[in-house]
């Protein structure tokens, strides 16, 4: 198992913060967690040009994004479950987490779940 020192050698721009009492790898100064980069990278089907265009205005380079993706490949147990949970989030599950959440627009005719 890699130590924290090993990680900083391999991934010098990835740090860990605490979110909801759990450790979360992230890229300091970008506002982005590693899982967010992986999630968006998947959303763009691995198209790095499109990913970087999505990040326009953010202080993140292609190299930094690549480091985050490499981190996720090295420690999939830390990242993949989060990305999968976000990708597969359903409105039913969201209502369990946030019982008072409401849809917008609220039009009754737009009340079906799918929109996939």
């Amino acid at each position, binding site marked *: 198992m890699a130590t924290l020192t090993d990680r900083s050698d391999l991934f010098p721009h990835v740090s860990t913060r605490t979110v909801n009492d759990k450790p979360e790898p992230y890229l300091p100064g970008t506002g982005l967690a590693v899982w967010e980069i992986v999630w968006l990278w998947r959303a763009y089907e691995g198209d790095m040009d499109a990913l970087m265009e999505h990040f326009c*205005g*953010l202080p993140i380079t292609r190299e930094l994004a690549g480091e985050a993706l490499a981190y996720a490949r090295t420690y999939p147990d830390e990242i993949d479950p989060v990305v999968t949970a976000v990708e597969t989030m359903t409105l039913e599950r969201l209502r369990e987490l946030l019982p008072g959440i409401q849809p*917008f627009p609220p039009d009754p005719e*737009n009340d079906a779940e799918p*929109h996939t």
Partner: protein
Amino acid sequence: MRGFLLDSHVTAAVVPGVRRALPSCEIDHLSTWRGGAFLHASDESIILAASNEDLVFVTYDVHSVPPLVHRMVAEGRPPVGIALGVPRVIRPSDAGKLISVLVRLFAKPFPFDPAYPVVYLRPSPKPSVKERRGRKGVVD
């Protein structure tokens, strides 16, 4: 509400799209808001600061934000508003759909429940014939 603050993972391309449609809407991206200072901040700090400026926080973070917001509500300090994008409903790569629903949210403000001011965003339905006529200035 005065407008929106977009989370860092929301593409900043949404900002000019909303501004074009709604010049009176205050909208900013986390990367530029307050000089980017909040790129270093926790979600809770960001949401509190946005609330202090009467801005609704727009995020797709359905992992970290729901438990945080639920706790804030339970503690009696709800934010001004949270607009959650659900990736399966509005894809994060689809800036056009997000712009459309934010414009609608601002132009016809949804009555956020002050006790639980959280909405999930869905694609706007196509405007009715009456709405389309109204936009064109056509009178029946």
